[in-house]
């Protein structure tokens, strides 16, 4: 019987990449099973849940004739705004405390701390993305929404928000291993950041001074960028994708440093 050759010596970069993809894929399938099981609609919950959120918010905002400072239809507004919030906010929520229930998996040498985070992030990203795309198609099909003016720009902004969510997710996930405070503080922080994140207003509708302050937040640049891609000429978007990229890079760097640090100290159980 041939032995598994993976762990011999130092594998090459392409081999490592292959192993990592394999491990993340295995973790992802396992995560789907543990989270959604094989009962009722099973893994469809992955995107049905965020869809219900977005639909609910859309319905409430429509009913309240929410003031958002533009002539855009509320459906369009809620879909672009709330979907991006789900994208960047759920990723950290799934990563905080993600390690403790999975410590036994670290007995398998090829399973690394970052893999556990990546599996959850990819799943969360996929759920939010499928929900966003499916609802877009649905609203476009029934005529409540115009197709995006620049699909590529929407995708680009979406990816930037996803990058932000992933780096923040790994950062907080790793940090939560060191301090229980992270879990306690993340929930109020996420809640308070929601109204500031640009989901419920256009930056252009704010007074000058408020605009300057609100644009210090990185995710709002992504939201504005997505909206410009969607509505183009009909709104005035305010963003600086370079500024957001700098934030993302910084967060990613800190996230990887923290992950490396806890990888050295974590004890499999």
């Amino acid at each position, binding site marked *: *019987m*041939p*032995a*598994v*050759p*993976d*762990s*011999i*010596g130092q594998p090459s970069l392409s081999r490592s990449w292959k*192993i990592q993809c*394999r*491990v993340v*894929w*295995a973790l992802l*399938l*396992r995560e789907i*099973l*543990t989270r959604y*099981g094989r009962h009722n609609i099973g893994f469809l919950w992955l995107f049905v849940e965020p869809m219900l959120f977005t639909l609910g918010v859309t319905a409430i905002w429509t009913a309240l004739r929410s003031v958002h400072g533009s002539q855009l239809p509320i459906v369009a507004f809620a879909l672009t705004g709330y979907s991006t919030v789900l994208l960047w906010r759920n990723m950290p929520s799934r990563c905080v405390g993600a390690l403790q229930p999975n410590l*036994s*998996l*670290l*007995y*398998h*040498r*090829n*399973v690394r701390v970052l893999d556990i985070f990546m599996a959850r992030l990819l799943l969360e990203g996929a759920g939010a993305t499928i929900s966003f795309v499916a609802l877009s198609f649905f609203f476009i099909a029934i005529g409540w929404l115009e197709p995006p003016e620049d699909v590529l720009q929407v995708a680009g902004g979406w990816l930037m928000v996803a990058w932000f969510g992933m780096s923040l997710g790994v950062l907080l996930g790793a940090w939560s291993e060191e301090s229980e405070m992270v879990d306690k503080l993340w929930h109020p922080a996420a809640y308070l950041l929601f109204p500031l994140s640009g989901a419920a207003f256009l930056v252009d509708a704010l007074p000058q001074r408020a605009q300057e302050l609100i644009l210090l937040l990185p995710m709002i640049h992504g939201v504005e960028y997505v909206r410009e891609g969607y509505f183009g000429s009909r709104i005035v978007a305010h963003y600086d994708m370079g500024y957001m990229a700098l934030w993302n890079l910084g967060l990613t760097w800190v996230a990887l440093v923290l992950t490396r640090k806890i*990888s*050295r*100290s*974590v*004890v*499999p*159980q």
Partner: protein
Amino acid sequence: MIRLAEIRKNYPTRLGPVRVLDGVDLVVRPGERVGILGRNGAGKSTLIRLISGAERPTSGAIERGMSVSWPLAFGGAFQGSLTGLDNLRFIARIYGVDPAEHEQFVADFSELGIYLNEPVKSYSSGMRARLAFAISMVIEFDCFLIDEIIAVGDASFHQKCLLELFEKRHDRAKIIVSHQTRYIQDHCTRASVLSCGKLHHFDNLDEAFGFYSEAPPPALEAA
């Protein structure tokens, strides 16, 4: 060949770090069966986790020239809410093995019957151990790490385990940790004793057993 050089491992406690391993050296060649004796708390499981790569040493180097298993017959690498089969699939995927090829073996070997499709959390500890052992025989390694608890299940199952591990895989290296000399005596060609953070090597088993019988209990004090 597996080579450990100057391995040190500290764990944090409220009173400061405790040094569990203090300069451990070990060489294991292909096909060797090495026993590691130590009293409860001597650091045997820590050592085996370091060799497996599940955990990193505080300092020192570990060189793995052959593929090394995870700590074997260990039941904890399971997800309780998943079924036995799903656990097999997960572990097979991690190691790049096709799970479908091995489902029959695991079913036959573990004797779990319809329970293979039930969540692991509904298993008795004996059932878990049987599943764990069956799954760990699915992935082939050059060196198996065996942490104490190989005496799983009843006598006939124990016999099956011995057959798989020591007869069918007699050519593989094995590192067996235990606090009982009997198990080491039956299955190892040489033995080392872990005591006070040091690993003491001996030329023959009897010398190791003699040293072990006089080894002091672990101190468990902060440095």
